[in-house]
């Protein structure tokens, strides 16, 4: 007697929008390759019921000046390249990045207050050092974000750089810059399905095409709100698959930044022996955070440690293999 097991394949009506970062020379850019994410019409890696045409992309985060407060484990892993943003970008490409995520941290008023001109020079340098598409983040202070991102948008005109972050109270300038110079934007909202959707609507109301918007739902690291991000992403992904157009933007999460902020990754002094070996624990902190969010629907993960990147690359390979 063969049991007849009912089918549980879902017939999703929607799919995640395809978004391409970077532009080849033929399309007005200078990149060696482009990276397209999104396009899936099923939940993450469920090949039995739908298509996952593009693998999630790994971006490696680099800074425009040596980061003082990073964990010694990270500083050691990168070594000298931290001193030079171009070298760092090149090394990131070598260790397996699909994208370079450049943070213009030195533009922050408290950290150097460098100018738009400086930002142009930095971006030029990174564009020359790597063939990968770019994500560029401002320092996270409204006025400086607007200043340096507008400069970057002009400098890198036509490169389809993802500019971040747009937030509900401050999106117009960055969106206008992206519109004028052929870039993408990242809309970041604080761990809430509705706010994520609202920002997508506000941005697209400015007539930026939806295939040029990424959404960052705000990342919580393992042990520090991971579950909130996880569920918000699952809900956004489900809504997208159910055909809700304004939730169909690919999602980007900054797992490296958040995981390495956790005490478990940052320090080893005075911590319980039960936490185990520091390096291994830190690597797992970054990779488990990343893995969990990939399975919740992340399309781009922004990471920090080269070993962690390598592991996640292997995991993605396996998850992309059809059973």
């Amino acid at each position, binding site marked *: 007697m063969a049991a007849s097991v009912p089918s549980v394949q879902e017939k999703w009506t929607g799919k995640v929008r395809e978004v391409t970062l970077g532009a080849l020379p033929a399309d007005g850019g200078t990149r060696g390759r482009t990276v397209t994410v999104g396009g899936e019409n099923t939940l993450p890696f469920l090949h039995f019921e739908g298509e996952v045409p593009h693998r999630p992309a790994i971006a490696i985060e680099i800074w425009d000046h040596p980061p003082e407060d990073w964990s010694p484990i990270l500083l050691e892993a990168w070594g000298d390249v931290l001193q030079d943003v171009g070298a760092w970008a090149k090394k990131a490409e070598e260790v397996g990045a699909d994208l370079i995520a450049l943070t213009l941290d030195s533009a922050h008023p408290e950290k150097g207050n460098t100018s738009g001109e400086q930002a142009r020079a930095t971006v030029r340098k990174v564009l020359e050092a790597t063939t990968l598409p770019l994500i560029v983040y401002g320092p996270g202070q409204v006025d400086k974000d607007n200043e340096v991102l507008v400069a970057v948008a002009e400098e890198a005109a036509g490169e389809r750089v993802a500019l971040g972050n747009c937030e509900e*109270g401050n999106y117009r300038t960055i969106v206008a810059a992206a519109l004028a110079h052929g870039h993408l934007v990242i809309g970041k909202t604080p761990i809430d399905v509705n706010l994520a959707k609202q920002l997508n609507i506000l941005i697209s109301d400015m007539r930026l095409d939806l295939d040029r918007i990424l959404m960052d739902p705000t990342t919580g690291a393992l042990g520090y709100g991971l579950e909130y991000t996880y569920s918000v992403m699952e809900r956004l992904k489900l809504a997208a698959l159910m055909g809700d157009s304004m939730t169909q933007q690919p999602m980007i999460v900054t797992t490296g930044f958040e995981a390495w902020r956790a005490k478990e990754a940052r320090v080893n002094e005075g911590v319980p022996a*039960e936490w185990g070996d520091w390096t291994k624990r830190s690597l797992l902190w970054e990779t488990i955070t990343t893995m969990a969010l990939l399975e919740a629907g992340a399309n781009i993960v922004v990471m920090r440690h080269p070993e962690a990147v390598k592991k996640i690359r292997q995991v993605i390979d396996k998850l992309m293999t059809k059973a």
Partner: protein
Amino acid sequence: MGLSGLAIYKLLPKTNCKECGFPTCLAFAMKLAARQVELSACPYVSDEAKAVLDAASAPPIRLVKVGPEERKVEVGNETVLFRHEKTFYHPPGFFYRLKDDEPADAFAARLEAVANYGVERVGIELKADGIALQSAAGSADAFGERAAQVVSAGLPLVLIADDPQVMEAGLKAAQGMAPLIYAANAENWETMASLAAQYGAPLAVFGEGLETLAELTEKIKGKGVEDMVLDPGTRGWSDSLAAFTQLRRLAIKKNYRPLGYPIIAFPGEGTEDELEEALLAGQYVAKYAGFIVMDHFDPASLYPLLTLRQNIYTDPQKPIQVSPGLYEIGKPTPESPLLVTTNFSLTYFSVAGEVEGSGIPAWLLVADSEGMSVLTAWAAGKFDAERIAKAVKSMGVAEKVAHRKIIIPGYVSSISGELEDELPDWEILVGPREAINIPSFLKQFAA
């Protein structure tokens, strides 16, 4: 999921007699729908209604218990596919595999390491759950002996052996400990089923493919065994994800009884790499395993995995909170302004975001408002002078901040008087009502 509140209400007496402890039958019905009360609390339900309601409330995934009462691992009884839909109730157990042919010393040492592992995280003690004892020698005696050793350590057991005789030795040693038998398969299912029945132990069932598995569980059920655990035979990343997802959907969405049991997973059989084993175990935590058998014990991987499990199995219906404390926005100095707000995450994020966006470094004191926003917390008395004062005193604010000025949200300006009484050394300043006005406020303040 079961019936809606209204559907249940229609089956109740509708007399609003209040004997169940609720003011109305509808209130009681809604609690029933949310599975927060037992039907028996109403003395007046008709038999007919009882039958309907009982059937609707039977769990789609059977609750299976392994181990002695004090350290039991209970899994199953899940009602949703995604944690946001309700919550995940029963976190998976981590079982470490030991083989019965290991030298005695090594065996004892590893057993002890697992048994004694315990670490606190946010006030909760995290532990490894048990041992999966595998017969490698094929000897009943060795298996029984080692099982007894695990039993005396008080740990729950998964017994792994194909040979029914060997299995029985283990079961004998673990009488009354409800060990999980791994596993019945197409060949041995009859004897394994009778062992399970005889020893009152739950039975894992191995079958490649869901059809085979469903067939086996039906046959075993026919032998009177109710407590089963499923192993669909997948070991890698994407095949397990697909299989486990289908199993969960079959139970929850189709109420398909033959596969309405918890799942067992073996991440160490999916990869050689130790780090990857931990990652794969992470997938199983998030995606539907009930028992996870690990091959490598290492606190450096167990701790993050237990943390992940704690995260995933947190009740998502509670408002998102940030932990109360004194937060640094930017790099504040002792002279930087000090603001206070509540620990509802959206409130925190919008305030912190605006402060950060202003470019003026500041101290942000997050008081415990039990996850409520400023207005709601204030309305419920959870963000009042007393609580704010308590936060100021308990978070070491006075050590980090040199001045004595605290900025409160504009919406609670009415408490400034009381707050002055509570904090006589402090000057209470009323900030803007809306977070969007914080940057201009801070700029004026700093000027």
